[in-house]
């Protein structure tokens, strides 16, 4: 089994690191495709848009111990858009929280990889999601707990852009500023598509950075598929310790598989056999 040696990765200079991370992302995309194809259900679009961010986060930033998933001083990562679980399961298997063969249990009865991420089933998962708009409030709780514990651990929360239409997200944004939780760090996967259609047809969000900064947060925008920008962005997030901060990552839903890219149909649908085969080829797998 392929489990990365993170300490080796951390020694690389940036250009070599970028090459390594891009290769890990490619492998994760293959996992995502296989999981959704095998289950004939699930959410490929938002998994493919988030994966470059997750790979960089797990490989370069997060503090955790795979042999002790419950370690109380670990950084927390909350995938609030819990439907995009194949992306998270894939990186959890790469860093060693779960085994590669566990990925086969995605959406299966008795499997540890549930349809939506679930902290009761999967080592390394910090929140049971599936209902949108809940993760940031939970993350604020984790961040406040870290402060009460005098711990330097951070809490990262990933949100979807459709998801921030939920009003409760803005309650949490307001409360996080009020409580000045510098250890709370949000990554927004801004792929411009939600369940039924493009965000702009469902509920326009207008100027997201402006909205967020008007709530008193630190805000930075990046290209969520450019590894150099991601690494810079994550460093920026990490070093913002006075106020809550959000990294707005502009991404492409379905990124890496041409017929899924920017296509609302692949929010929550599996490819058929023909599509699966052509996607594998695109991802560099020769069968």
């Amino acid at each position, binding site marked *: 089994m392929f489990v990365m040696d993170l300490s080796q990765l951390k020694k690389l200079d940036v250009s070599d690191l970028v090459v390594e991370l891009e290769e890990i992302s490619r492998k994760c995309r293959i996992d995502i495709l296989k999981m959704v194809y095998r*289950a004939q*259900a*699930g959410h490929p679009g938002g998994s493919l848009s988030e994966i470059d961010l997750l790979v960089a986060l797990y490989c370069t930033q997060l503090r955790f111990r795979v042999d002790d998933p419950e370690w109380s001083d670990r950084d927390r990562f909350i995938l609030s858009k*819990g439907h995009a679980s194949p992306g998270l399961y894939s990186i959890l298997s790469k860093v060693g929280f779960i085994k590669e063969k566990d990925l086969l249990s995605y*959406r*299966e*009865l*008795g*499997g540890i990889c*549930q*349809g*939506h991420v*679930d902290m009761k*089933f999967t080592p390394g998962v910090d929140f*049971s*999601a*599936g*209902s*949108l*708009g809940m993760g940031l409030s939970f993350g604020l709780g984790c961040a406040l707990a870290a402060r009460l514990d005098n711990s330097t651990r951070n809490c990262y929360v990933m949100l979807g852009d*459709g*998801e921030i*239409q*939920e*009003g409760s997200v803005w309650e949490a944004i307001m409360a996080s500023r009020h409580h000045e939780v510098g250890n709370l760090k949000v990554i927004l996967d801004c792929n411009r598509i*939600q*369940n*039924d259609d493009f965000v702009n*047809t*469902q*509920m326009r969000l207008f100027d997201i950075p402006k909205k967020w900064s008007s709530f008193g947060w630190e805000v930075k925008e990046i290209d969520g598929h450019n590894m150099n920008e991601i690494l810079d962005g994550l460093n920026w997030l990490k070093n913002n310790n006075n106020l809550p901060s959000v990294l707005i990552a502009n991404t492409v839903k379905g990124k890496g598989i041409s017929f899924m890219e920017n296509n609302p149909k692949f929010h929550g649908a599996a490819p058929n056999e023909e599509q699966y085969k052509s996607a594998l080829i695109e991802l560099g797998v020769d069968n």
Partner: protein
Amino acid sequence: MTELAASRDGYGKALLSMATDEKVIVLEADLGKSTKSCWFREKYPNRTISCGIGEQNMMLVAAGLASSGYRPFASTFAIFTERAFEQVRNGIARPNLPVHICGSHGGTHTGTDGSSAQSIEDIAIYRSLPNMIVMHPCDDNSTEQLTIQLLKQDSPSYTRTARNKTPRIYEINDSRLEIGKGVILREGGDIAIIACGVMVSKSIEAAELLNSIGYDVAVVDMHTIKPIDTDLLDKLSSRYKALITVEDHNIIGGLGGSVAEYLSQKSNTILRRIGVKDRFGESGQAEEMLKLLNISTNDIVDTVVEVISEVK
């Protein structure tokens, strides 16, 4: 061959046939493709209001429309209607505004999405609200017909529909279908099963199996859980020594709870409730979930045999 159909399609069709009434307004929360309100949206975009992923807002927008003389039909997954429970309670049920809520993908039958999407408490919570009508029809045709009947109601309602296809039970425009009136789908001398939603076809399947081994079992479709059909319950409890309720819902507070509450006041009839035994589900195919939670056809068969031997 029995045809298969999903009750959520009946909701979509009902909206289309009600469209001639200009007061009908459809509200969505980014799940129109799933609840099937998308069919209405396609034809009547001006009377479809997108609320984004914002269920709490949607319920009160619907309440405002209802107070202004419109007939709003708002839908999302059953589980996400619950996100707006207090809005429904205080903004819809309390002022008794005719907002009609449809929660699709209800129950564990919805399958591999896992426990976060499997509502097993929706019927119980809406049933506990004064003024609410609560329904869980068993197929597309009955869902369509009962949803259309909602238009004549002056009270709010909650209707659970299901995602997956199950055997079609009713013909189009079946004269037996009326809100608040259960339907005896199958007569039988030994015992009666009272079921709702996806468990109606399972109960019929069980009754057929039981028939082949010598048991004569009646099956009732109790599509309206509130107001529960007390006339029918009186009739059944005087005719049978035992009744069995079957639902894809927690045994607390749903169809079984409703029947138990009524029977406990006046009858000596034994009641056995088949349902989810106060636990959450997990990812799995619909049939696997029913087995895991002991609410499959075989579980119904076993329970019937057991209960009949007890009351003999």
